[in-house]
């Protein structure tokens, strides 16, 4: 039976063989692999792109102090983007399951409607959750819009929840019992991280500081967006650093939310602030893809 990392190796190899760039995880905190520039920005515009990467994804509110066998503050996603999506994409996806040792004739597989959307990113898509023997093992999405912009080419996004998938493959009912390597359990690698971050996120994070940080990153991002118009030459403009500021804001929003510092009413407003930045940066990125459209983006 494959270990956690062997399964990851096989998936990366599978998608590498199908023309994907194998990227390494992005180094700014994100809530999902979708938020990495490799997805969020690359899906915009007319350039074809294929990429796959593992992305540790932080969901502060899902932390359970390492007590819950299935819920994690941080889990690993294997994210695949095929832009544009090939017409045999679902067959290719099923092939990836076979590549990691699933005999599809012996398992039950269903595609259940699940349309993804991220209000903070102004993004949405149409798709399914893929259910294997009653377990959701993949989220599959055809992106339609990102940063509030209709996409030129429709990318397919395949997101494997790695802990869940490997627990399924290894027959474990707790992710902490997964064999990361032959002689190291998942718990030995990650349990302390789950516990400590849960304590911080739920009990010790300073709300005032988090709000301050949020405001600072927001201001920095907006400053950059505003500077674009006058800046020349456009090709040197730091769009990617501006996007990092969006990610910082998004993560701080999630932390504040987990801390119970955002009321239901405030929520909409704060989401709107992050969305505004995301849409702004997406438009700058597009402007750089199509220099003649740079004026329009403003």
């Amino acid at each position: 039976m494959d270990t956690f990392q062997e399964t990851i190796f096989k998936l990366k190899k599978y998608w590498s063989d199908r023309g994907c760039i194998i990227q390494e995880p992005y180094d700014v905190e994100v809530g999902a692999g979708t938020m990495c520039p490799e997805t969020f920005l690359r899906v915009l515009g007319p350039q074809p792109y294929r990429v796959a990467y593992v992305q540790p994804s932080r969901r502060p509110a899902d932390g359970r102090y390492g007590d819950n066998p299935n819920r994690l503050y941080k889990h690993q996603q294997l994210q695949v983007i095929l832009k544009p999506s090939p017409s045999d994409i679902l067959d290719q996806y099923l092939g990836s399951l076979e590549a990691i040792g699933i005999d599809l004739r012996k398992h039950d597989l269903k595609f259940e409607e699940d349309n993804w959307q991220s209000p903070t990113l102004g993004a949405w898509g149409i798709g399914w959750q893929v259910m294997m023997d009653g377990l959701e093992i993949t989220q599959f999405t055809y992106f339609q819009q990102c940063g509030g912009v209709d996409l030129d080419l429709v990318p397919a996004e395949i997101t494997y929840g790695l802990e869940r998938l490997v627990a399924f493959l290894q027959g474990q009912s707790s992710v902490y019992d997964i064999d990361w390597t032959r002689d190291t359990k998942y718990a030995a690698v990650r349990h302390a991280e789950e516990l400590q971050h849960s304590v911080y996120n739920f009990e010790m994070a300073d709300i005032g500081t988090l709000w301050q940080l949020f405001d600072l990153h927001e201001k920095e991002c907006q400053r950059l967006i505003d500077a674009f118009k006058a800046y020349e030459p456009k090709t040197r403009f730091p769009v990617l650093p501006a996007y990092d500021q969006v990610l910082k804001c998004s993560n701080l929003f999630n932390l504040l939310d987990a801390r119970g510092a955002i009321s239901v009413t405030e929520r909409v407003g704060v989401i709107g602030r992050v969305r505004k930045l995301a849409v702004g940066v997406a438009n700058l990125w597009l402007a750089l893809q199509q220099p003649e459209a740079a004026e329009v983006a403003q």
Partner: protein
Amino acid sequence: MSTLPLLIEIGTEEIPDWMIVSAVTQFREAVEKALAENALGGKVRMADATPRRIALIIDDVLERQPDREDLVMGPPKAAAFKDGKPTGAAMGFARKNDVDVNALHIESTAKGEYVAVRKSVAGKPASEILGALIPEAILKIYFPKTMYWTGKNGPRFIRPIRWIVAVQGRAVIPFELAGVASGSTTFGHRRMSSGELAVTADNYVETLAGAGVIVNSAARRQRMVDGIAALTAPAGLQAKVDEALLDTLVYITEYPTPILGGFDPEYLTLPAEVLITVMRHHQKYFSVNDAQGKLAPNFIAVMNISGDPDGIVRHGNERVLKARFNDARFFWDFDQRRKLADRVADLANVTFQEKLGSYLDKTTRMMALVKELGGNAAAARAVELSKCDLTTEMVKEFTELQGQVGGLYARAQGEPEAVAQAIYDHYKPVSMEDSIPSTPEGCAAALADKVDTLRGCFGIGLIPTGSKDPFALRRAAQGVVKILTEAQLPLALSSLAGGNAALNEFLLDRVRYYFKDVRGFAYDEVNAVLAAGSDNLPDVDQRVQAIKEVRPSADFEPLAASFKRIKNILKQAEFTATGTVNAALLEQGPEAELHAAFDRLRADVAGKRAAKDYRGALAAIASLRPAVDLFFDKVLVNAPDEAVRRNRLTLLATVLTEFSSIADFSEIVTGS
């Protein structure tokens, strides 16, 4: 003319189950209509679907349209011929239609005489017409949310179209849609078949059956029903029948096969509500009862594959369910660390609505309201704790169990049974079909909740318009009406509206809806009672019942017509009665007799009305008909003498007012 059967199959990626039935109907109707419009005949043999295909088989489709003769109208005769000679206009028209000018003739129409020509038109081959109409019919199917996949501005459909079968007999009807060329081959089950399969209308169903696809949705349903019975009956078990779940499963599978799984009976210590919700809503399993009707430690899952010989799928599903149950137990244990009663203050952090404040504010208002509604101490306690479960992990995970979780926790935490049950029930009824809370305390708590929401939202102008009703105010108002009526609570609707006229009207609308659509009374009967000013619903209920019973009697509708006439007379005369009838001014005969009849009935009707014998009262009123008829037959209301005239109007007004207090007869729609 020769005909051949037509097969159309739209091959797609998996369509959401709940959209499929409507899509099949629409597609069938669009194609039928197009065939008829093009005189191609055709009779639908099959219209069905699986998640991956929408298929239509139509028999007797003509291979070629019949030839026909068209009448083409040209310019007016006056412009086409001058002195019997064809003008340029006539010659142009002839040339355009490729005929000799002598072939033109004159047609007389309503607008005058025109030049015309009869042209015989050869019918087109069906494949040419179908090649245009099928893609059009496909793209015309309405789906609630569509996507594009071939690039911006590409065609939209519910999911990508991957293949299209369009064959008449054995011949492909050629067209292209979204980059897919139509053909004569389909694909079988994703995992029980591979490669392309050649199909025609006549072997389509069998070919797919051999490739792991049951095209017929009714057959898939039957296979599930039979399979479930075969799994449960021998074990003395019974699966909980759930039509909606069956519908869903029919359309997320191409080859449904039920399996029986089990779980550790130890989990039965968790509330059945939680276990069933996990199975039903989160896992799409049927829950199973034992011979005594109690929840058994089993479930039925439905696979999309023919079998599970090694028990791998069963084992997988059992493991998933165990993890879900563990989650639920974790939530239960975690939540018990703080009692509901200790969570009231936390509600300050849960927003109900921006302007209406938190759930703590709502609770405070509901506490006052439940007293106003006559709720007892248990009802008040239930209201106090009713929203606390919103702060629990269990409700955050299973939001559909709000209320029920609160009730279960209250019971576990030693609250009196009446309190626990009232909390449990206080969202009821969640639909017109759902029952009202089972206890008086539950009804009081449910009313307090709904009335507060209604008053609050109407108070800040959040009034539902059209299909927009984000706070589900219609459902809340319907719940209020249902509870008041069925629990026989004599509370005035107008007082519940708290003086808000828009809310009062909104509630009355729901009353009309309830008595008409749910209870089956005629709308005018309901209007008659409401117009008489009754807004205590058990009373309204008795009155409409009485009208319904008395209505078929010979006197009732004619009397209603007369009452309407009286109302119109008074309105036209702009008359308002100020005094009483002066007997001395009454003319002997019909007028005096009407007065006498009225006097005789008056006490009887009043007595019966006071005793709530509405049927008897209405029957008594109806007996006034001959006297009223005779009056209108013989007496001139507009008497020349002003005093007599006023006295007459007073008599009519008195009769109308006195006898309209149960129901306003003028609202009754009569044949006359």
